[in-house]
Structure formats: C-alpha cells, structure tokens
C-alpha cells in the first residue's frame, strides 16, 4: 500500500518517500541478515547444519514413504502433529502479549510487542513445516488452494486450520513489516494502517488455537479428544508457552542486543500472566484427569493408558509424569518470591513450563487419542530416528527465521539503521549492525 497519500506524518526532519525507499529498505534488511559477528555466523551455521540433517531425513522419507516413521494405521499421527499442535499454541501465545499493550495502553509493552509478533511469524513457519512433513503427498499441496484445488471449506476443520494459520501469518507479517518500515523511514506509523490489524490479530490468535483444538475435539470416534474443555485448555496453555518463551527471549536479547532496551516492566507483567495461567492449566488438567479416571467406562481407557499403562504397555507413562512434574515445578518456582528478584529462578520456571506444556499438548495429547484404537487394539508408538531428525530440523529452521527477523528488526527499532543512515554501507565495516547483537564486553573479538 502507498503511505504517501496519508495525512502528513508527524515525524520531524526529512520525509523520505515510502515507495522509493522500499527497495533500499529491503536491501538493508538483506544485508543485515547476512552480515554479523563471528558468533552470529557460528550460530547460524550450526542451525543450518541441523536443518540440513532434517531436510535429508525428509528427502529419504519422501522417497521411501512414511514407513520411515513409526506411525501405523493404528497410531496414524505422531511426533509431527504433536509438535504442530504445540507450536500453534506458541504462535497464539506470542501475540497474547499484544492484549495488555494495546487494550490497556501499556507504553513499555509496546516495544516488546514486536518481539512477540516476530516470534509468532517464526512459529507459524514451524507449524506449516510440520504439516508439510506429515503429508504423504506434499507434491499435491496445491489441492488445498481454493479455486485451483478443492478446499473443503467450511466443513473440514483442517481446511479451517489452513485458512486461519495462513491468515494469521499474513496479519503478523503485515503488522511487523509495516511497523519496522515506518521506523526505518523515521516516520510515526499511521494507526489506521496497523491498529485494526492488531486488534484483529488478538482475536485471530484465539481462533488459531481454538480451531486446532476443534480439529481433535470434533472427532466423535475418539473419546479422549471429544471434550468441550479441549479448546479452553489449549488457550490456557498458549498463555503459558507464549509468555514463557518471550521472557526467555527478552533475556537473550538483553544479553546480545543491549541497544534494544528491555525494561523490567514487561517481563514482570508476563511473569504475572504465567503465575495465573500455570495454575489454571493445572486445575483444568486435573479436572479432565479426574473425569476420565474416576468415572470409568469406555471413555477412560486412553487416560488409563496415558497415566498408568494398559495391558502391560506403558510407553507414554514416563512422558506424562515428566510433564506433570515439570508443570508442578514451574508452578512452584513461579510463585516463589525469588521469582520477582532472581532472574535465574524465573527463567528456570519458564523452561519447566515450556517443557511441561510441550509434553502435555504434544505426545501426551495426540498419541493417547489413538491408543487404544477405535477397535480397542493397543498398538504403541515411539517416534523413529527419522521423525526426531526431521522435527529437530524444522525447529532449527524456525529458530533461524526468528533470529534473522530479530536481527533485521531490532537495529531498526533502536534507530541504528534507517533511511537517513542510508543502510549499512556507511557504517564502519568492522563493526556493522552485529555490534548490537553482542554485549559490549565481547565486541573486541568481532572479526
């Protein structure tokens, strides 16, 4: 869209033309992504290596078929869909931070909102990756495109998921892209061009995770998923993983990009969110476990298998109890008074919460839906090496996307890169933007 027809921007100084500056902007971003300190190169190389291992495993899986996984007709979804489900939550949760920032006009939060939205973008990329590797025929991906293909909308929940995930990706790309570009132009962003989308994305964040829950909850033949509490539980756990990851991320940014000031206020606000959602999640988890286990009947077998094992088979038992332990640990840590003063305590709580939800919303939710099968056969599943490799590869690629996005956006937000500074060519070659990604003490060993 052209912003040049807008009412005069209130930014002082020169008014660069937004259309003419755009190629320059893209070029600066490109340069930023490919220039950095030694640590940046080393990190990206390591992530690339993991991503390539995953890519190679996927190539083998495509050639030989899904036999390379340990999924069967009994357990027809496994680690991929488990990770997909979890990451949708992360994507939704990352944007939930927008709520305090815009609804309550919390000024300090405004600065970190961009971090959350960039995280959402990277998380959606991961989600799409997991869907792609779970497909038997990714070469037919175009069948879901409305018009050319035959998207079964609105009947299939999966097609809803396709629609809302892509919509969410576009929304967040627009918001981030617009805000960063305006910062680059040193203009004040025009509210009309992003505020409506911000509010839309808040609602949309709820919808992506509810739709993902309905994907499972809508299957009458799978009693373990067929629960009205599933969508609320999904939302609550999104409110855990999003803030937990963002708290950790803000600490990393503090260390590597000190120029981007991260105030204590937002971190404390996110910790307050965590203190509540972790408890609500435990409560909901407990009520579901109670209903399933206490009432007995046909519905409870999957839960029995999950928590206690069934007919001598208990592959999931260690998983779920580890998940429970992590959730409890995070609940205790986050409520210790030290979590307000000691950063390590808070970060440990975040790691525990993140791991706990990963198990609970991943393997602990998807696999027991299939065990026992609809004809009550107990067939177990443990992911194959191929599945682990591909999953690691997708997460590595997602992390790369996140790092690159941050690396492009943060220097703009701190004012180091802008149209006036005519991108990086005018910066000293030895310490370009990379300087902002390293703490001052370690700047000496850059190149």
């Amino acid at each position, binding site marked *: 869209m052209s912003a040049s027809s807008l009412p005069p921007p209130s930014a002082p100084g020169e008014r660069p033309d937004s259309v003419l500056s755009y190629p320059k902007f893209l070029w600066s971003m490109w340069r930023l992504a490919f220039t950095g300190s030694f640590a940046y*190169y080393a990190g990206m190389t390591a992530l*690339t*290596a993991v991503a*390539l*291992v995953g*890519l*190679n495993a996927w*190539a*083998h899986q*495509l*050639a*030989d*078929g*899904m*036999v390379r*996984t340990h*999924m*069967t*007709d*009994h357990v*027809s*979804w496994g680690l991929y869909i488990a990770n997909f489900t979890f990451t949708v939550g992360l994507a939704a949760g990352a944007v939930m931070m927008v709520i305090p920032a815009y609804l309550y006009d919390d000024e300090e939060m405004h600065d970190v909102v961009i971090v959350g939205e960039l995280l959402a973008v990277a998380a959606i990329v991961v989600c799409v990756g997991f*869907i792609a590797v*779970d*497909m*038997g*025929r*990714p*070469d*037919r*991906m175009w*069948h*879901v495109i409305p018009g050319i*293909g*035959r*998207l*079964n909308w609105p009947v*299939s*929940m*999966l*097609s809803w998921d*396709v629609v809302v995930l892509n919509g969410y990706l576009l929304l967040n790309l627009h918001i981030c892209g617009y805000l960063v570009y305006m910062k680059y132009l040193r203009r004040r962003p025009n509210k009309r061009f992003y505020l409506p989308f911000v509010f839309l994305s808040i609602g949309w964040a709820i919808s992506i995770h509810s739709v993902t829950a309905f*994907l499972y909850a*809508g*299957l*009458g*033949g*799978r009693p373990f998923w067929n629960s009205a509490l599933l969508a609320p539980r999904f939302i609550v756990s999104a409110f855990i993983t999003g803030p937990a990851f963002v708290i950790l991320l803000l600490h990393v940014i503090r260390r590597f990009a000190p120029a981007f000031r991260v105030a204590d206020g937002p971190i404390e606000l996110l910790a307050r969110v965590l203190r509540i959602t972790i408890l609500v999640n435990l409560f909901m988890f407990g009520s579901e476990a109670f209903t399933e286990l206490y009432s007995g009947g*046909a519905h409870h*077998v999957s839960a029995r298998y999950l928590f206690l094992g069934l007919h001598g088979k208990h592959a999931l038992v260690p998983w779920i109890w580890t998940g429970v332990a992590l959730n409890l640990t995070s609940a205790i840590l986050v409520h210790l008074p030290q979590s307000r003063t000691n950063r390590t305590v808070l970060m440990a709580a975040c790691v525990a919460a993140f791991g706990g939800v990963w198990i609970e919303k991943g393997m602990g939710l998807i696999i027991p*839906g*299939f065990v*026992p*099968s*609809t*004809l*009550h*056969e107990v067939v177990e599943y443990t992911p194959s090496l191929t599945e682990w490799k591909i999953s690691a590869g997708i997460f590595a690629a997602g992390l790369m996307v996140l790092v690159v996005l941050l690396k492009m956006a943060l220097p703009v937000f701190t004012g180091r890169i802008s149209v006036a500074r005519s991108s990086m060519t005018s910066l000293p*070659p030895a310490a370009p933007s990379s300087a902002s990604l390293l703490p001052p003490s370690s700047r000496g060993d850059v*190149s």
Partner: protein
Amino acid sequence: MDKAKRRTLKVLGSTLGAAAFAYAIEPLRAWASDMSLGELLQKHYRELTPDEMRAVLARLEADAEAKYGREVTIEDIRPTPGVELGYALNLSVCIGCRKCAEACHVENNHDRTTNNSYIRVLEMEQGSFDLEKGTTTYDHAVPSPGKYYLPVQCQQCDNAPCVKVCPVQATWKESDGIVVVDYNWCIGCRYCEAACPYHARRFNWSKPEIPAEEINPNQSYLSNRVRPQGVVEKCTFCLHRTRKGLLPACLEACPTGARVFGNLLDPNSEIRWVLAHKRVYVLKEELGTRPRFFYYFDN
C-alpha cells in the same frame, strides 16, 4: 579480519553450504523420477471430462505395467441409478476363519509384505458387545468355545465422519452409498483415518509390493487398482464387481454364508428380507454415523 579474507570465507562458506544442501536433497531424485507431470497436475475425479478420463485411465494402465510388470485394465465404473448397496452379516454363523479378509487381500491388490486387508475380524466374548474384550490377533482353531466373531470393514456410513473431515474432498459418498477415495487427489494427511470410528481406512506407508503374477488385472479407478504410495484407501464393497451385478469378494469367499449383500431399494432383495425379519444391530450407533453395514443374530 580484513575485507578480502572475509569475502573468501563467505565464498567458501556458501560453496560448502550449497554442496551440503545438494547432498541433503539427493534422495529426492528417486522420488521425482517416480512422478510425471500428468500425474502431478491431474484434476479431481469429478472434474475430469470423458476425454480426460480416457487419457488418465490409459496413463494409469501404462504406469501399472511399467511399475509392476503386469498388463491391467482400469475402468471407470459409475453407480447405477436406483441402486443403494447394503451389506448384512450373520453373527450367529460367522466362525472367524478370516477367509473374507484373505479374499479381500487378493481381490484388492493389497501390499503383500504387510498382508493388508480391509477387513479385521474380532474374536469377542459371548454375551458381550464390549469391543474392549475383543481381540484381532487370535491364533488358534476356530470357532473357539465361548466366543463369537465380529468382522469389521468400512461401514459406508451415511453420515461419514471421514468424508466430513477431508480437507480437499478427496473422499466422498457416491449415489449408491459407497464411500470412495480419489487416490490421485488425496494429499495423505490421514485426518480421515483419525476420524473413522471403525478403523476402516488404511494408509500406504510405502509403495505396495505385489509380484506381477499375483496382481488382479481387473481394476477400476476408484477401487482396487494398485494404490500410489502416500495415500489413503478403504473398502469399496468391491465396486468394480458389485456395480456390474457381481457379489463382493469377501461374500463369495465366506464358507458359512454369513454374508448378505444387495440393493436396499429393491423390496424383493435378500438384504431387505433380513432387515425386515431379523434383530439388526449397527456398530457404535451412538455416534450417529448411520452405517450401511448391518449385523444380526439368528434368533
């Protein structure tokens, strides 16, 4: 580090990266060599014109010969108006011999290594309909005292959960009541497999392997042609037979005559007689799937 050194390192890095990338995707060559543009761009079954359909069938026949070394005929057989097919099974008579499952395996060109079949036979506790107490892996002389046998295959649900969930309409219900899959349209997401309450769908985890001489050459597009890797398949009541007035392979193989098949719209058919005179059950009635596969007992 000076500029030139930096550049050299960058060039070296990207060369190594490109080499690693090429190595990583190398297995895709085998994958791509198995595909043709015609296959990649083929339209949905229901959008093919008669001419296009002829071309597709010819391509599929040539493909089958190239891949499996057997000359086959693949037809596109449409439902007959005024016919709605239904199946009934007499649980008092079924002895659990699994001859039906075996016949299905052969008739439908199932993968030999996995010994696949669309039919699973559960050995059940007499006096109980509790699937929890059944087993499909029994391995002894049948019938075993105190047991009865419950063969389960696609129930061709009138309100089919599998059809509802498919994101690309690769599976649908035909006018004669048979739920079919377009194997050339399915994207292999396996959502239908998760949705089916009767464990009736199978996924092709790898390319099916069948020796040329064991292939059943009488095939149709929507049923027993050898399926591609990475798609879902299911029982079609042998539509390549039943739409021509023959009986399903499982029924012909049944030594006890436990199986009854026919046109539900024909008041004089045997199946209508069974539905009118026997106590008839359907599986998991509470789910509202409305099966066209009925179970009954003799008294």
